[in-house]
């Protein structure tokens, strides 16, 4: 019995290995007319935002399907896997690499290798060190936080009690969204009465919000560093059973179509601020580079606010 099990497992393994090989061969084989091959290394697909980034890239690339083909790789949140992926792309001889790095330092070297071999590299969202890449495209979290702060000042008439549900505070986006927000509310009488590090996670935000609700009879607004946390805070208020979810204003960041934007549509969130994925811009920039046009070294993406009034028109640029 044991031997059978081992044999079956081994057979499965061989079959799987075979399948995997066939697929990659197919993917890298040029089909008919010469197309530019773009390699895209995504640091992980566990976060909806990154799924959306790939979606945006796919969407933009499909409009130029006769010119380019994108090969997607998921590094599953492992730095060494992503390093290997960049080198695989170099070996394959792709025409351009798009990378959204997990970690700046360890990926600087592989990216530089590609760049020095003449393969243009577009770095998305998170930076690598030095200047051995073609173009960086990213959003400005400080600005987004600041806009959220300024909006809240306006919304509450310059004064009020606010709960801040932070993202992971050892991560740069968390720090910047906090810093920007403090700048945005500076000079107003808005007071942060409770804050917690929710590590971007909705269940934790829900729990922390319950504590805030237990402690403070008066809460005017919740500023959450991402939409799931804002949603969790809303649910905590609803589950408290005092109807406070109707009086507290919930504000989030990210504005993914299936998350934040929909929450605004349903009246759960008062507002959400877009953290753009840059997927579309990456493809546009890639095409320019491949056609020999000059592109800036740094492209900073803007943000948009979604509220009940403008959500059907696709938000309002800030």
């Amino acid at each position, binding site marked *: 019995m044991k031997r059978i099990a081992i044999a079956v497992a081994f057979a499965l393994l061989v079959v799987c290995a075979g399948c995997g090989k066939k697929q990659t061969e197919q993917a890298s084989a040029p089909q008919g007319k010469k197309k530019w091959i773009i390699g895209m290394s995504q640091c992980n697909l566990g976060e909806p935002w990154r799924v959306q980034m790939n979606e945006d890239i796919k969407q933009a690339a499909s409009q130029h399907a006769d010119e380019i083909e994108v090969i997607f790789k998921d590094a599953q949140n492992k730095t060494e896997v992503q390093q290997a992926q960049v080198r695989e792309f170099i070996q394959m001889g792709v025409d351009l690499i798009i990378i959204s790095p997990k970690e700046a330092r360890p990926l600087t070297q592989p990216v530089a290798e590609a760049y020095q071999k003449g393969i243009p590299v577009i770095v998305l969202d998170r930076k690598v060190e030095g200047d051995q890449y073609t173009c960086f495209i990213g959003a400005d979290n400080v600005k987004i936080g600041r806009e959220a702060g300024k909006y809240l000042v306006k919304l509450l008439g310059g004064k009020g009690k606010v709960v801040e549900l932070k993202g992971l505070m050892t991560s740069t986006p968390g720090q910047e969204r906090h810093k920007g927000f403090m700048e945005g509310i500076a000079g107003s009488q808005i007071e942060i009465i409770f804050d917690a*590090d929710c590590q971007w996670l*909705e*269940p934790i935000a829900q729990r922390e919000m319950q*504590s805030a609700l*237990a*402690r403070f*009879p008066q809460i005017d607004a919740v500023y959450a560093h991402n939409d799931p946390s804002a949603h*969790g805070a809303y*649910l905590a208020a609803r589950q408290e059973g005092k109807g406070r979810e109707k009086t507290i204003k919930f504000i989030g960041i990210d504005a993914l179509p*299936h998350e934040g934007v929909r929450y605004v549509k349903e009246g759960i969130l008062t507002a959400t601020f877009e953290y753009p994925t840059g997927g579309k811009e990456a493809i546009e920039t890639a095409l320019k580079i491949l056609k020999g046009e000059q592109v800036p070294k740094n492209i900073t993406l803007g943000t948009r606010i979604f509220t009940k009034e403008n959500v059907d028109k696709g938000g309002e640029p800030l």
Partner: protein
Amino acid sequence: MDTSRLHRFLEKLNDYRGVIAFVVVFTLGIIFSPRALDTGLPIFLSWQTQLAILYEYSEYGLLATGMTLVILTGGIDLSVGSVLGLSAVLFSLLTIGYGWSVAPALGVVLLTGLTCGVINGSLIARFRMQPFVATLAMMTAARGAAKLVAGGIKVQPGGQPWYVMQSGTPPFFQWMTTALPGIGIQPSTLLFLLCILVMAALVRYTSYGRWLYAIGGNEEAARLSGIRVGAVKVLTYALCGMFAALAGVLNACRQDLGDTEAGMTYELDAIAAVVIGGTSLMGGRGGMMFTLIGVLIMAYINKILSLNAVELAPRMVIQGIIIAIAVLIQQKRGRS
């Protein structure tokens, strides 16, 4: 004479270390509780906070309930967090995506959890895999299955254009998480309490319960005394899987969506709760009511830290220290 009585008293006390720890933590809660701004009373003591604590930990509680059974046999189940995630996604997909009514969806989800458990149990009992390895494989596979089933996104109304529910979840979601009028307790909390009480009775008063202890105490002796060790193990892992599935349903209702990442690392919290309660990881010692205490201790610690808005880093250190102390206490008992 005197010393032996003292000895017996201490031994008795030993059995209830979990209870003592519970009382200590509860007292700490009262001491360190911030006071309500309107009434000036410690928030920790309020009925509302106590209910919130139970409610927030009902998922962990269900996982720990199943985990206790497994640990009593000397095994471990690392897959419960992933099975929770798979179930949350599946339940949301069936009700929100396909518009099924709650009862059949619940049936399918529980059956899925049961199947995961049976696979775990079979790998362990039939194929002699180590519980750690077998359930590690299931942990990975079930998490992948959750992502596959969901199509890589969170399952919520309007998530896909073809979902039957485009806005608002089925009423069941809100019902589970809203306090029942009259008693003021959420159905999901009641479900957890019911499950753990039933299992406590089962472990204490039935032959199944005695088999668990026998297998955990000495598997070979249990086998020689005529207990069908393999069958009991499969049943135990199956029950554990089913409780994880039930926790998944609770998670979906509580979050109002099916998150593919739901339950990530929850297995560790469940194991910690069981161990803190006083059930031995070696098997054969402990019980279900100890686990209830363990869950409450974890929940209280978390709530005290959260109410005081303690920062993440010190919070994690404190939690780690408390778990270590609980394990130390256990080792001492093992030696005596």
